[in-house]
């Protein structure tokens, strides 16, 4: 049946691309607890990761991941809201300990258990406020098949280089829909490695290094004592109250992410000359938006498209882009517009409109209607 082996078009789902990309990017271990719609990620990880461990629940999942990370391994998991809710305290812990890891969050319809088999874009507000104290939890989103490859790699790179948990945000249809896809054009990936301390002086586990990120040492090393802690601490990893040394370190956790955000700002901006309208969409709704834009332009309407991929923290360039337009439409599969509120607050803005809904994909025609209104 295969006449030409060189051809590289395969039948894929996003899960397969994500797992292959993460492994090729240097992730060592997948630890997971099953949950629809993240089960394909679990299944492929079982086949592909050098180490795979089935955890008895999601709190354990994150704790094991943190434990592995202290020994220098780069861990990954995949879950959906019910599991993520259980992980959240431990995600805070990983952020405070500065342990790299990627959590693939496959959104499904809530609240609570909701409908396991229905996709959604309902968790961004939680991610935006998920770290106590308002610290940023870096969140990168997948908006097309190629992103399953490239954004997974970027998420892992960001996690390792900034020593932080990073959320790779997606939704049911993006990881479960099968599609013909040509892998030939995908960029080659190189394993990403921890930046190890090699000095002779006493190691200070939380001493700001290049770009405010501390150099890493594993608890397996024999030369330097390593102290890792989730309680407020100084550069030595010694518990502090609200001392200046403690607060300097705590504030650095946020500056570290913000100062390096440029390097990890990913988006597509499809600008049309003369357009006064801007459509913004991310994740699963990006597909409908691309189609809407195509049709609108064929019909002579002038409109630009912004697909943010680095969702959190919000890169300042999005604001610069938004300011150029008279009308901004943000399409998301949730009630109330979560990214819209992150960008414009509850107070909103007269020039900003949302296209929202739950329990089904937002359609291109719903988007076109709002843009043309």
């Amino acid at each position, binding site marked *: *049946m*295969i*006449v030409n*082996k060189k*051809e*590289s*078009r*395969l*039948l894929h789902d996003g899960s397969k691309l994500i*797992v*292959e990309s993460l492994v090729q990017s240097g992730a060592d271990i997948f630890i997971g607890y099953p949950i*629809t719609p993240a089960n394909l990620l679990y299944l*492929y990880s079982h*086949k*592909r990761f*050098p*180490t795979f*461990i089935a955890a*008895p*629940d999601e709190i*354990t999942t994150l*704790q*094991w*991941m*943190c*434990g*592995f*990370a*202290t*020994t*220098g*391994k780069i861990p990954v998991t995949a879950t959906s809201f019910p599991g993520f809710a259980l992980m959240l305290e*431990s995600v805070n812990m990983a952020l405070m300990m500065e342990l790299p890891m990627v959590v693939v969050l496959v959104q499904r319809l809530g609240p609570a258990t909701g409908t396991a*088999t229905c996709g959604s874009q309902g968790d961004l507000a939680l991610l935006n406020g998920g770290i106590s104290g308002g610290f940023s939890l870096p969140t990168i989103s997948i908006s097309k098949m190629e992103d399953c490859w490239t954004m997974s790699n970027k998420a892992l790179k960001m996690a390792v280089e900034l020593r932080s948990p990073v959320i790779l945000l997606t939704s049911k*249809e993006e990881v*479960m829909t*099968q*599609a*013909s896809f040509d*892998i030939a054009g995908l960029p080659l990936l190189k394993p990403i490695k921890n930046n190890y301390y090699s000095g002779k002086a006493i190691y200070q586990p939380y001493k700001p290094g290049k770009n405010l990120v501390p150099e890493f040492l594993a*608890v*397996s090393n*024999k030369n330097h*004592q*390593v*102290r*890792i*802690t*989730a309680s407020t601490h100084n550069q030595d*990893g*010694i*518990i502090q109250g609200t001392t200046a040394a403690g607060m300097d370190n705590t504030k650095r956790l946020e500056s570290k992410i913000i100062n390096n955000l440029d390097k990890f700002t990913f988006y597509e901006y499809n600008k049309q000359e003369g357009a006064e309208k801007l459509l913004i969409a991310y994740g699963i709704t990006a*597909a*409908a938006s*691309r189609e809407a834009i*195509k049709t609108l332009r064929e019909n002579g309407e002038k409109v630009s498209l912004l697909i943010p991929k680095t969702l959190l923290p919000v890169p300042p360039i999005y604001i610069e882009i938004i300011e150029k337009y008279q009308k901004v439409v943000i399409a998301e599969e949730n009630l109330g517009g979560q990214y819209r509120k992150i960008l414009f607050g509850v107070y909103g803005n007269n020039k900003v409109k949302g296209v929202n809904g739950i329990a*089904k*994909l937002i*359609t*291109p025609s719903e988007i076109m209607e709002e843009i043309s209104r």
Partner: protein
Amino acid sequence: MNKFLTDTALPFCKGCGHSQVAQYTEKALQNLNYDPMDVVMVTDIGCHGIIDKSFTTHTVHGLHGRSVALGSGVSAGLNNPNKKVIVFIGDGGATIGMQHLIDAAHNGFNMTVLIHNNMLYGMTGGQPSEFTPFGFKTPTLPEGAKEAGYDICKLIAAAGASYVSRVMGIGDFSAQLTEAFSKKGFSLVEVMEICPSYGVKSNPGMKLSKLVEEAGLEIKVFADNKNSFYQTEIKENRKSLFSKEDAIPTKYENKLKKPLRFMLCGSAGEGTQVAAEFLLKAGMLSGLHATKKGSYPVTVGVGFSAAEIILSPDEILYTGSPNPDVVCVTSQDGLDYARNTIRNMSGGKLLIDSSLEIPETKAEVSAFPFREKVGIRNSSIYSIFYYLKNSELIPIDSLVDVFNESKISKKLDIAKMLDF
């Protein structure tokens, strides 16, 4: 002799049993001649947990109740029986994180857990835990506990630990700790203590040994039976998920000018998802872009099974298909699932099994006895052959190729699929 504790004073209230645990831990590690750099102390949240700054080993200090799971991860990550992972946890942490204890014992992670059982939550003001013995009073339980506390040693021995013992936290118990630290696999020591600040105040005149005896908590070794331990499997250079053998090159031409949105609706166990995948691959063999979304209840073995397929000469951006061009229904479950979609069709085609009632629709209807002609299990695949045969948009040979490459071809004669 290696020092495991710094020279600074331990951070506990005067007379707190936690101090002894730290001191005898040092002594036990010295007995075993450990290098501090081969030891990782993992500590929980609670009074006992603030000890980490006093250790000269590697230290990891996490969340309340989760230190055993965290330590399990450290241990499995080190994957080296010559390293020593020790977890300090309180009875409070052991209550909220009980599952992690059972789980770690069950898996046999290489580590020793020391439970500082002072029978209450010290750090938060002396509230009772589930280890609080019958009758024991605390500031928030002045009437005394109404139930007996857990016998954690029995529980963890039953969960499969290598070594479990309970010791009195009075006098030198470094020999028992040495014993526990020397074991491979999961070991646990419960140290019975008293919190002078809350426990003594609420139970004036109480003697720890009497209390432990009356609670029926035996001071002994509960398990010392195996030396096996968890080993982390590392499989380097595993096969890529992308296999050249799975490539689907273009072999045929198609006549499609615009996207074809196809909805296939049947019942679980009647090959609907397989049929959809066949159609997808046939489309790809014919040079088309293709996507497929499956829908079925969480209990995949019963009820409807449906698939939305898009075949398109151009790149497919949006994978939803609210208005399908073709709906193909092969069972009653499928009909119930698709009824609304069918009612809303303003054109296009409805293929439906002749055994089913034809719903109201503006689509062009063809009824055919799919189920009767090839049997229930193959009706879905057969309906795809029927469609391609009649539509001629995609050469039926492409589907024949896909069929012949599949496992089904070994059980089912292709001639049957082409007989209408």
